[in-house]
Protein backbone atom coordinates (compact mmCIF):
# COMPACT_ATOMS: atom_id res chain seq x y z
CA UNK A 1 0.00 0.00 0.00
CA UNK A 2 1.40 3.38 -1.03
CA UNK A 3 1.33 6.65 0.95
CA UNK A 4 3.19 9.29 -1.10
CA UNK A 5 4.78 11.95 1.11
CA UNK A 6 4.17 14.91 -1.23
CA UNK A 7 0.36 14.91 -0.80
CA UNK A 8 -2.16 15.48 1.99
CA UNK A 9 -4.94 13.11 3.06
CA UNK A 10 -8.42 13.08 4.61
CA UNK A 11 -10.10 10.65 7.00
CA UNK A 12 -12.57 9.97 4.18
CA UNK A 13 -9.67 8.57 2.10
CA UNK A 14 -9.23 11.37 -0.42
CA UNK A 15 -5.84 12.85 -1.27
CA UNK A 16 -4.92 16.44 -2.17
CA UNK A 17 -1.90 17.64 -4.16
CA UNK A 18 -1.08 21.34 -4.38
CA UNK A 19 -0.40 22.46 -7.94
CA UNK A 20 0.15 26.20 -8.28
CA UNK A 21 -3.03 28.02 -7.26
CA UNK A 22 -5.20 24.89 -7.57
CA UNK A 23 -5.32 21.57 -5.76
CA UNK A 24 -5.78 18.16 -7.38
CA UNK A 25 -8.09 15.67 -5.61
CA UNK A 26 -8.35 11.91 -5.86
CA UNK A 27 -8.95 8.80 -3.70
CA UNK A 28 -6.19 6.91 -1.92
CA UNK A 29 -4.65 3.54 -2.69
CA UNK A 30 -6.25 2.25 0.51
CA UNK A 31 -9.68 3.44 -0.69
CA UNK A 32 -9.45 1.81 -4.12
CA UNK A 33 -8.25 -1.43 -2.56
CA UNK A 34 -11.12 -1.45 -0.07
CA UNK A 35 -13.67 -0.75 -2.81
CA UNK A 36 -12.43 -3.37 -5.26
CA UNK A 37 -13.06 -3.12 -9.01
CA UNK A 38 -14.34 0.41 -9.61
CA UNK A 39 -17.02 0.44 -12.31
CA UNK A 40 -18.70 3.84 -12.04
CA UNK A 41 -17.75 7.42 -11.15
CA UNK A 42 -19.87 10.54 -10.98
CA UNK A 43 -18.04 13.88 -10.79
CA UNK A 44 -19.24 17.48 -10.47
CA UNK A 45 -19.52 19.97 -13.34
CA UNK A 46 -16.64 22.27 -14.17
CA UNK A 47 -17.32 25.70 -12.67
CA UNK A 48 -19.38 24.25 -9.82
CA UNK A 49 -18.45 24.74 -6.20
CA UNK A 50 -17.61 22.14 -3.57
CA UNK A 51 -17.85 22.45 0.20
CA UNK A 52 -15.39 20.94 2.66
CA UNK A 53 -16.65 17.62 4.09
CA UNK A 54 -19.70 17.61 1.76
CA UNK A 55 -20.17 14.97 -0.98
CA UNK A 56 -19.07 16.15 -4.42
CA UNK A 57 -19.37 12.89 -6.34
CA UNK A 58 -19.66 9.15 -6.03
CA UNK A 59 -17.49 6.16 -6.80
CA UNK A 60 -18.94 2.66 -7.11
CA UNK A 61 -17.35 -0.75 -7.30
CA UNK A 62 -19.19 -3.91 -8.32
CA UNK A 63 -20.46 -4.28 -4.76
CA UNK A 64 -20.06 -0.92 -2.99
CA UNK A 65 -21.20 2.68 -3.28
CA UNK A 66 -19.03 5.37 -1.74
CA UNK A 67 -19.51 9.13 -1.64
CA UNK A 68 -16.57 11.39 -2.45
CA UNK A 69 -16.13 14.12 0.17
CA UNK A 70 -14.53 17.44 -0.66
CA UNK A 71 -11.27 17.86 1.29
CA UNK A 72 -11.57 21.66 0.99
CA UNK A 73 -14.09 24.25 -0.22
CA UNK A 74 -13.64 25.94 -3.57
CA UNK A 75 -14.46 26.08 -7.26
CA UNK A 76 -14.06 23.13 -9.62
CA UNK A 77 -11.78 24.28 -12.44
CA UNK A 78 -11.17 20.95 -14.17
CA UNK A 79 -12.76 17.49 -14.15
CA UNK A 80 -11.05 14.26 -15.25
CA UNK A 81 -13.63 12.96 -17.71
CA UNK A 82 -11.27 10.14 -18.77
CA UNK A 83 -11.98 8.22 -15.54
CA UNK A 84 -15.73 8.43 -16.11
CA UNK A 85 -15.18 6.45 -19.32
CA UNK A 86 -12.50 4.18 -17.80
CA UNK A 87 -13.17 3.88 -14.04
CA UNK A 88 -10.74 0.96 -13.77
CA UNK A 89 -7.90 3.52 -13.87
CA UNK A 90 -8.85 4.33 -10.26
CA UNK A 91 -7.68 0.85 -9.26
CA UNK A 92 -4.60 1.01 -11.46
CA UNK A 93 -3.18 4.47 -10.72
CA UNK A 94 -5.04 6.16 -7.85
CA UNK A 95 -2.41 8.88 -7.26
CA UNK A 96 -1.70 9.59 -10.92
CA UNK A 97 -3.98 9.17 -13.95
CA UNK A 98 -7.00 8.71 -11.70
CA UNK A 99 -7.03 12.24 -10.30
CA UNK A 100 -10.66 13.36 -10.13
CA UNK A 101 -11.04 17.13 -9.95
CA UNK A 102 -8.91 20.27 -9.74
CA UNK A 103 -10.23 22.83 -7.29
CA UNK A 104 -9.33 26.48 -6.73
CA UNK A 105 -9.45 26.76 -2.92
CA UNK A 106 -11.79 29.28 -1.35
CA UNK A 107 -9.76 29.23 1.83
CA UNK A 108 -6.18 27.96 1.35
CA UNK A 109 -5.77 27.54 5.13
CA UNK A 110 -8.03 24.47 4.93
CA UNK A 111 -5.18 22.57 3.27
CA UNK A 112 -3.13 22.91 6.45
CA UNK A 113 -5.77 20.99 8.40
CA UNK A 114 -5.37 17.85 6.27
CA UNK A 115 -3.37 14.81 7.33
CA UNK A 116 0.23 14.13 6.38
CA UNK A 117 1.17 10.75 4.89
CA UNK A 118 2.37 9.51 8.28
CA UNK A 119 -0.77 10.70 10.07
CA UNK A 120 -3.00 9.09 7.46
CA UNK A 121 -1.13 5.80 7.57
CA UNK A 122 -1.45 5.76 11.35
CA UNK A 123 -5.15 6.59 11.09
CA UNK A 124 -5.74 3.63 8.75
CA UNK A 125 -3.89 1.23 11.02
CA UNK A 126 -6.03 2.34 13.95
CA UNK A 127 -9.21 1.98 11.88
CA UNK A 128 -8.48 -1.64 10.91
Amino acid at each position, binding site marked *: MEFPKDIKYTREHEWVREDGDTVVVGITDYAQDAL*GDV*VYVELPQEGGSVTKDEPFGVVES*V*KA*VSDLYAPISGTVVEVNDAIVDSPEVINEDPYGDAWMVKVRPGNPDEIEDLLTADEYQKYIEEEK
Partner: protein
Amino acid sequence: MELKRTPLYEVHAGLGARFVEFAGWEMPVRYKGVMEEHRAVRSSCGLFDVSHMGEIEIRGVGALEAVELITANRASGLKDRQCQYTFILNRDGGVVDDVVLYRFSAERFILCVNASNTDKAYGWIRENVSGMADVRDVSLEYAQFALQGPGAEKILKPHVASDISRIKYYHFEVTEVANELAVVSRTGYTGEDGFEIYLEPSMAIKVWKVIMFEGKKLGGVTPCGLGARDTLRLEMGYPLYGFELNEDITPLEAGLGRFVCLGKERFIGKEALVRQAADGVEKTLVGLEMDEPGIPRPHYKVFKDNDEAGEITSGSFSPSLERAICMGYVKSSLKAPGTAVEIEVRGKRKKAHVVRPPFYHRPGGRPGAEGGE
Protein backbone atom coordinates in the same frame (compact mmCIF):
# COMPACT_ATOMS: atom_id res chain seq x y z
CA MET B 1 -21.54 -13.09 18.62
CA GLU B 2 -18.37 -14.64 17.30
CA LEU B 3 -18.45 -15.32 13.59
CA LYS B 4 -18.28 -18.90 12.37
CA ARG B 5 -15.45 -19.93 10.08
CA THR B 6 -15.34 -22.70 7.50
CA PRO B 7 -12.59 -25.34 7.65
CA LEU B 8 -10.87 -23.43 4.82
CA TYR B 9 -10.51 -20.09 6.61
CA GLU B 10 -6.71 -20.27 6.83
CA VAL B 11 -6.46 -21.37 3.20
CA HIS B 12 -8.50 -18.34 2.12
CA ALA B 13 -6.39 -16.02 4.27
CA GLY B 14 -3.25 -17.48 2.67
CA LEU B 15 -4.70 -16.69 -0.76
CA GLY B 16 -5.12 -13.04 0.27
CA ALA B 17 -8.90 -13.16 0.63
CA ARG B 18 -10.84 -10.19 1.90
CA PHE B 19 -13.49 -11.43 4.32
CA VAL B 20 -17.04 -10.29 4.96
CA GLU B 21 -19.66 -11.17 7.55
CA PHE B 22 -22.45 -13.15 5.93
CA ALA B 23 -25.25 -14.83 7.89
CA GLY B 24 -23.06 -15.19 10.98
CA TRP B 25 -20.08 -16.51 8.99
CA GLU B 26 -16.78 -14.90 8.16
CA MET B 27 -16.62 -15.66 4.44
CA PRO B 28 -14.24 -14.72 1.62
CA VAL B 29 -15.90 -12.01 -0.48
CA ARG B 30 -13.06 -11.77 -2.99
CA TYR B 31 -9.46 -12.78 -3.53
CA LYS B 32 -8.01 -10.82 -6.47
CA GLY B 33 -11.18 -9.11 -7.59
CA VAL B 34 -14.84 -9.75 -8.31
CA MET B 35 -14.51 -9.00 -12.03
CA GLU B 36 -11.64 -11.43 -12.56
CA GLU B 37 -13.33 -14.18 -10.52
CA HIS B 38 -16.65 -13.66 -12.28
CA ARG B 39 -15.04 -13.89 -15.72
CA ALA B 40 -13.07 -16.99 -14.74
CA VAL B 41 -16.35 -18.80 -13.99
CA ARG B 42 -17.90 -17.69 -17.30
CA SER B 43 -14.84 -18.63 -19.37
CA SER B 44 -13.08 -21.48 -17.53
CA CYS B 45 -13.55 -22.55 -13.93
CA GLY B 46 -13.96 -21.14 -10.42
CA LEU B 47 -13.96 -22.82 -7.01
CA PHE B 48 -16.15 -21.45 -4.20
CA ASP B 49 -16.15 -22.44 -0.55
CA VAL B 50 -19.85 -22.48 0.33
CA SER B 51 -19.52 -24.42 3.56
CA HIS B 52 -21.75 -21.86 5.26
CA MET B 53 -24.76 -23.44 3.55
CA GLY B 54 -26.88 -25.54 5.89
CA GLU B 55 -28.00 -29.16 5.48
CA ILE B 56 -31.10 -30.65 7.09
CA GLU B 57 -31.69 -34.38 6.91
CA ILE B 58 -35.16 -35.95 6.91
CA ARG B 59 -35.18 -39.69 7.54
CA GLY B 60 -37.55 -42.53 8.20
CA VAL B 61 -40.46 -44.38 6.62
CA GLY B 62 -42.46 -41.16 6.59
CA ALA B 63 -39.66 -39.06 5.07
CA LEU B 64 -41.23 -38.63 1.63
CA GLU B 65 -44.57 -37.73 3.16
CA ALA B 66 -42.87 -35.19 5.43
CA VAL B 67 -40.96 -33.64 2.52
CA GLU B 68 -44.17 -33.39 0.47
CA LEU B 69 -45.85 -31.57 3.35
CA ILE B 70 -43.15 -28.99 3.96
CA THR B 71 -42.02 -28.30 0.37
CA ALA B 72 -44.06 -26.74 -2.43
CA ASN B 73 -42.64 -28.56 -5.46
CA ARG B 74 -43.65 -32.18 -6.16
CA ALA B 75 -41.08 -34.43 -4.50
CA SER B 76 -42.86 -37.71 -5.34
CA GLY B 77 -41.65 -37.63 -8.94
CA LEU B 78 -37.99 -37.63 -7.88
CA LYS B 79 -35.81 -40.68 -8.34
CA ASP B 80 -32.97 -41.64 -6.01
CA ARG B 81 -29.94 -39.34 -6.53
CA GLN B 82 -32.00 -36.59 -8.04
CA CYS B 83 -32.17 -32.95 -6.81
CA GLN B 84 -34.96 -30.41 -6.97
CA TYR B 85 -35.21 -26.67 -6.42
CA THR B 86 -38.18 -26.07 -4.10
CA PHE B 87 -39.61 -23.85 -1.36
CA ILE B 88 -40.46 -24.19 2.30
CA LEU B 89 -43.49 -21.92 2.77
CA ASN B 90 -45.40 -20.53 5.70
CA ARG B 91 -49.18 -20.78 5.85
CA ASP B 92 -49.55 -17.45 4.02
CA GLY B 93 -47.48 -18.79 1.15
CA GLY B 94 -44.47 -16.65 2.15
CA VAL B 95 -41.03 -18.16 1.66
CA VAL B 96 -39.45 -19.56 4.84
CA ASP B 97 -36.53 -20.67 2.67
CA ASP B 98 -35.70 -21.63 -0.90
CA VAL B 99 -33.79 -24.89 -0.93
CA VAL B 100 -32.33 -27.69 -3.01
CA LEU B 101 -33.78 -31.06 -2.09
CA TYR B 102 -31.58 -34.18 -2.45
CA ARG B 103 -33.30 -37.58 -2.57
CA PHE B 104 -30.96 -40.35 -1.40
CA SER B 105 -33.87 -42.80 -1.09
CA ALA B 106 -37.58 -42.69 -0.33
CA GLU B 107 -36.56 -42.78 3.35
CA ARG B 108 -33.71 -40.27 3.31
CA PHE B 109 -33.63 -36.71 2.00
CA ILE B 110 -31.31 -33.79 2.60
CA LEU B 111 -32.33 -30.17 2.14
CA CYS B 112 -29.55 -27.72 1.33
CA VAL B 113 -30.74 -24.53 3.02
CA ASN B 114 -29.49 -20.95 3.12
CA ALA B 115 -26.96 -20.19 5.86
CA SER B 116 -29.11 -17.30 7.03
CA ASN B 117 -32.09 -19.64 7.44
CA THR B 118 -30.58 -22.84 8.78
CA ASP B 119 -31.82 -22.49 12.36
CA LYS B 120 -35.20 -21.13 11.32
CA ALA B 121 -35.81 -23.80 8.67
CA TYR B 122 -34.74 -26.56 11.04
CA GLY B 123 -37.14 -25.32 13.72
CA TRP B 124 -39.95 -24.92 11.23
CA ILE B 125 -39.53 -28.42 9.78
CA ARG B 126 -39.33 -30.09 13.20
CA GLU B 127 -42.43 -28.27 14.34
CA ASN B 128 -44.44 -29.29 11.29
CA VAL B 129 -43.42 -32.88 10.65
CA SER B 130 -43.13 -34.10 14.21
CA GLY B 131 -43.93 -37.78 14.41
CA MET B 132 -43.68 -38.28 10.63
CA ALA B 133 -39.89 -38.48 10.28
CA ASP B 134 -36.58 -37.85 12.03
CA VAL B 135 -35.27 -34.36 11.35
CA ARG B 136 -31.63 -33.47 12.01
CA ASP B 137 -29.55 -30.39 11.38
CA VAL B 138 -26.44 -31.99 9.84
CA SER B 139 -24.82 -28.72 8.73
CA LEU B 140 -21.68 -29.33 10.79
CA GLU B 141 -21.17 -32.71 9.12
CA TYR B 142 -20.60 -31.14 5.70
CA ALA B 143 -18.21 -28.73 4.10
CA GLN B 144 -19.42 -27.65 0.67
CA PHE B 145 -17.62 -26.47 -2.47
CA ALA B 146 -19.03 -25.28 -5.75
CA LEU B 147 -16.83 -25.88 -8.81
CA GLN B 148 -18.42 -23.83 -11.57
CA GLY B 149 -17.69 -23.04 -15.18
CA PRO B 150 -17.35 -24.66 -18.60
CA GLY B 151 -14.10 -26.31 -17.47
CA ALA B 152 -15.55 -27.82 -14.28
CA GLU B 153 -16.12 -31.36 -15.58
CA LYS B 154 -12.65 -31.67 -17.06
CA ILE B 155 -11.05 -30.35 -13.84
CA LEU B 156 -13.02 -32.53 -11.45
CA LYS B 157 -13.25 -35.77 -13.41
CA PRO B 158 -9.76 -37.18 -12.70
CA HIS B 159 -10.38 -36.98 -8.93
CA VAL B 160 -13.77 -38.66 -8.69
CA ALA B 161 -14.19 -42.41 -8.29
CA SER B 162 -17.27 -42.55 -10.51
CA ASP B 163 -17.75 -41.09 -13.99
CA ILE B 164 -19.08 -37.58 -13.39
CA SER B 165 -19.76 -36.98 -17.07
CA ARG B 166 -22.77 -39.28 -16.54
CA ILE B 167 -24.25 -37.10 -13.79
CA LYS B 168 -27.11 -35.18 -15.39
CA TYR B 169 -28.15 -31.65 -14.40
CA TYR B 170 -29.84 -31.68 -10.99
CA HIS B 171 -28.69 -35.23 -10.25
CA PHE B 172 -25.99 -36.45 -7.89
CA GLU B 173 -23.75 -39.36 -6.93
CA VAL B 174 -22.44 -40.54 -3.60
CA THR B 175 -18.84 -41.21 -4.51
CA GLU B 176 -15.25 -40.31 -3.62
CA VAL B 177 -13.39 -37.12 -4.46
CA ALA B 178 -9.63 -37.37 -3.95
CA ASN B 179 -10.34 -40.68 -2.18
CA GLU B 180 -12.66 -39.05 0.35
CA LEU B 181 -16.36 -39.83 0.63
CA ALA B 182 -18.42 -37.08 -1.00
CA VAL B 183 -21.75 -36.18 -2.51
CA VAL B 184 -21.26 -34.67 -5.98
CA SER B 185 -24.24 -32.97 -7.60
CA ARG B 186 -24.48 -31.25 -10.97
CA THR B 187 -25.95 -28.08 -9.51
CA GLY B 188 -24.90 -24.51 -8.91
CA TYR B 189 -25.84 -20.88 -8.61
CA THR B 190 -23.93 -19.35 -11.50
CA GLY B 191 -25.76 -20.39 -14.70
CA GLU B 192 -22.69 -22.35 -15.79
CA ASP B 193 -22.16 -26.08 -15.91
CA GLY B 194 -20.62 -27.25 -12.68
CA PHE B 195 -20.78 -29.30 -9.53
CA GLU B 196 -21.39 -28.92 -5.85
CA ILE B 197 -19.38 -31.19 -3.58
CA TYR B 198 -20.39 -32.06 -0.02
CA LEU B 199 -17.76 -33.70 2.14
CA GLU B 200 -16.57 -34.21 5.68
CA PRO B 201 -15.16 -30.92 7.04
CA SER B 202 -11.89 -32.55 8.15
CA MET B 203 -11.20 -33.46 4.50
CA ALA B 204 -12.04 -30.01 3.11
CA ILE B 205 -8.50 -28.62 2.94
CA LYS B 206 -7.12 -31.74 1.31
CA VAL B 207 -9.81 -31.88 -1.39
CA TRP B 208 -9.66 -28.11 -2.02
CA LYS B 209 -5.89 -28.33 -2.55
CA VAL B 210 -6.14 -31.33 -4.86
CA ILE B 211 -8.69 -29.54 -7.07
CA MET B 212 -6.72 -26.27 -7.06
CA PHE B 213 -3.26 -27.70 -7.68
CA GLU B 214 -4.20 -30.45 -10.14
CA GLY B 215 -6.51 -27.97 -11.86
CA LYS B 216 -3.53 -25.82 -12.80
CA LYS B 217 -2.50 -28.38 -15.41
CA LEU B 218 -6.00 -28.46 -16.89
CA GLY B 219 -6.57 -24.80 -17.64
CA GLY B 220 -6.62 -23.43 -14.12
CA VAL B 221 -9.06 -23.01 -11.27
CA THR B 222 -9.70 -19.54 -9.83
CA PRO B 223 -10.73 -19.28 -6.17
CA CYS B 224 -13.94 -17.22 -6.06
CA GLY B 225 -15.66 -15.37 -3.23
CA LEU B 226 -19.20 -14.39 -2.39
CA GLY B 227 -18.86 -11.22 -4.47
CA ALA B 228 -18.58 -13.13 -7.73
CA ARG B 229 -21.20 -15.62 -6.55
CA ASP B 230 -23.62 -12.71 -6.23
CA THR B 231 -22.90 -11.09 -9.62
CA LEU B 232 -23.07 -14.49 -11.34
CA ARG B 233 -26.45 -15.35 -9.85
CA LEU B 234 -27.78 -11.85 -10.57
CA GLU B 235 -26.88 -12.15 -14.26
CA MET B 236 -28.99 -15.31 -14.34
CA GLY B 237 -31.89 -13.67 -12.50
CA TYR B 238 -31.66 -16.22 -9.67
CA PRO B 239 -33.22 -15.00 -6.42
CA LEU B 240 -31.21 -14.60 -3.21
CA TYR B 241 -33.03 -15.11 0.07
CA GLY B 242 -33.21 -11.88 2.06
CA PHE B 243 -33.26 -9.85 -1.15
CA GLU B 244 -35.75 -11.27 -3.68
CA LEU B 245 -37.34 -13.68 -1.19
CA ASN B 246 -38.61 -13.42 2.35
CA GLU B 247 -41.55 -14.54 4.48
CA ASP B 248 -43.81 -11.81 3.06
CA ILE B 249 -43.15 -12.77 -0.57
CA THR B 250 -44.66 -15.78 -2.32
CA PRO B 251 -43.04 -17.81 -5.13
CA LEU B 252 -45.82 -16.60 -7.45
CA GLU B 253 -44.85 -12.97 -6.85
CA ALA B 254 -41.22 -13.93 -7.44
CA GLY B 255 -42.15 -15.45 -10.81
CA LEU B 256 -41.10 -18.89 -9.58
CA GLY B 257 -44.46 -20.62 -9.86
CA ARG B 258 -42.90 -23.36 -12.00
CA PHE B 259 -41.21 -24.65 -8.83
CA VAL B 260 -44.56 -24.91 -7.03
CA CYS B 261 -46.97 -27.78 -7.62
CA LEU B 262 -50.48 -26.53 -6.88
CA GLY B 263 -51.84 -29.90 -8.08
CA LYS B 264 -50.26 -31.64 -5.08
CA GLU B 265 -52.77 -32.95 -2.55
CA ARG B 266 -51.40 -30.85 0.28
CA PHE B 267 -48.42 -28.78 1.37
CA ILE B 268 -48.03 -25.95 3.84
CA GLY B 269 -48.90 -22.71 2.09
CA LYS B 270 -50.99 -24.33 -0.64
CA GLU B 271 -54.32 -22.68 0.23
CA ALA B 272 -52.80 -19.20 0.17
CA LEU B 273 -51.10 -19.83 -3.17
CA VAL B 274 -54.24 -21.31 -4.76
CA ARG B 275 -56.08 -18.15 -3.72
CA GLN B 276 -53.31 -15.92 -5.03
CA ALA B 277 -53.11 -17.84 -8.31
CA ALA B 278 -56.83 -17.17 -8.82
CA ASP B 279 -56.75 -13.52 -7.73
CA GLY B 280 -53.48 -12.62 -9.43
CA VAL B 281 -50.46 -10.98 -7.83
CA GLU B 282 -50.20 -7.24 -7.15
CA LYS B 283 -46.43 -7.09 -7.47
CA THR B 284 -44.06 -9.12 -9.61
CA LEU B 285 -40.31 -9.66 -9.62
CA VAL B 286 -38.78 -8.37 -12.85
CA GLY B 287 -35.37 -7.71 -14.31
CA LEU B 288 -34.46 -4.13 -15.18
CA GLU B 289 -31.70 -2.58 -17.24
CA MET B 290 -30.58 1.02 -17.00
CA ASP B 291 -30.86 3.31 -20.02
CA GLU B 292 -28.81 6.06 -18.35
CA PRO B 293 -25.57 5.97 -16.35
CA GLY B 294 -25.93 4.83 -12.75
CA ILE B 295 -26.00 1.56 -10.84
CA PRO B 296 -29.26 0.52 -9.18
CA ARG B 297 -28.86 -0.89 -5.67
CA PRO B 298 -31.17 -2.63 -3.18
CA HIS B 299 -34.01 -0.44 -1.85
CA TYR B 300 -33.81 2.16 -4.63
CA LYS B 301 -37.35 3.11 -5.65
CA VAL B 302 -38.95 2.48 -9.03
CA PHE B 303 -41.25 5.10 -10.54
CA LYS B 304 -43.76 5.09 -13.39
CA ASP B 305 -45.14 8.46 -14.50
CA ASN B 306 -44.05 10.06 -11.21
CA ASP B 307 -45.84 7.43 -9.10
CA GLU B 308 -43.86 5.07 -6.91
CA ALA B 309 -44.26 1.68 -8.55
CA GLY B 310 -41.74 -0.63 -6.93
CA GLU B 311 -38.41 -1.26 -5.26
CA ILE B 312 -35.07 -2.74 -6.32
CA THR B 313 -34.00 -5.90 -4.47
CA SER B 314 -30.55 -6.56 -6.03
CA GLY B 315 -28.48 -4.49 -8.41
CA SER B 316 -24.94 -4.40 -9.68
CA PHE B 317 -22.67 -3.72 -12.57
CA SER B 318 -22.74 -6.86 -14.70
CA PRO B 319 -19.17 -8.02 -15.40
CA SER B 320 -20.28 -10.09 -18.41
CA LEU B 321 -22.51 -7.47 -20.03
CA GLU B 322 -20.56 -4.44 -18.80
CA ARG B 323 -23.69 -2.54 -17.91
CA ALA B 324 -25.87 -2.05 -14.85
CA ILE B 325 -28.59 -4.65 -14.18
CA CYS B 326 -31.00 -5.23 -11.33
CA MET B 327 -34.05 -7.07 -10.10
CA GLY B 328 -36.95 -5.65 -8.19
CA TYR B 329 -40.64 -5.86 -7.41
CA VAL B 330 -42.93 -3.66 -9.51
CA LYS B 331 -46.68 -3.38 -9.88
CA SER B 332 -47.76 -6.35 -11.97
CA SER B 333 -49.16 -4.05 -14.66
CA LEU B 334 -45.55 -3.03 -15.44
CA LYS B 335 -44.07 -6.51 -15.79
CA ALA B 336 -44.06 -6.71 -19.61
CA PRO B 337 -40.53 -6.67 -21.08
CA GLY B 338 -39.75 -3.30 -22.62
CA THR B 339 -41.89 -1.32 -20.17
CA ALA B 340 -40.18 2.02 -19.51
CA VAL B 341 -39.77 3.05 -15.86
CA GLU B 342 -37.49 5.28 -13.81
CA ILE B 343 -35.23 4.27 -10.94
CA GLU B 344 -34.29 6.83 -8.33
CA VAL B 345 -30.49 6.65 -8.00
CA ARG B 346 -29.31 8.81 -5.09
CA GLY B 347 -32.00 11.44 -5.59
CA LYS B 348 -32.07 11.43 -9.39
CA ARG B 349 -34.59 9.57 -11.53
CA LYS B 350 -32.87 7.58 -14.26
CA LYS B 351 -34.48 5.83 -17.20
CA ALA B 352 -34.65 2.04 -17.18
CA HIS B 353 -36.71 -0.68 -18.81
CA VAL B 354 -38.07 -4.08 -17.85
CA VAL B 355 -36.34 -7.17 -19.24
CA ARG B 356 -36.96 -10.87 -18.84
CA PRO B 357 -34.06 -12.56 -16.99
CA PRO B 358 -31.65 -14.18 -17.50
CA PHE B 359 -29.66 -11.08 -18.38
CA TYR B 360 -26.77 -13.23 -19.49
CA HIS B 361 -27.11 -15.98 -22.09
CA ARG B 362 -24.41 -18.61 -22.02
CA PRO B 363 -22.94 -19.41 -25.43
CA GLY B 364 -24.43 -22.78 -26.37
CA GLY B 365 -27.35 -22.50 -23.96
CA ARG B 366 -27.88 -22.97 -20.25
CA PRO B 367 -27.63 -26.11 -18.18
CA GLY B 368 -31.03 -27.76 -17.89
CA ALA B 369 -33.88 -26.17 -16.01
CA GLU B 370 -33.45 -22.90 -14.18
CA GLY B 371 -32.78 -23.03 -10.48
CA GLY B 372 -31.60 -20.93 -7.59
CA GLU B 373 -30.70 -21.32 -4.00
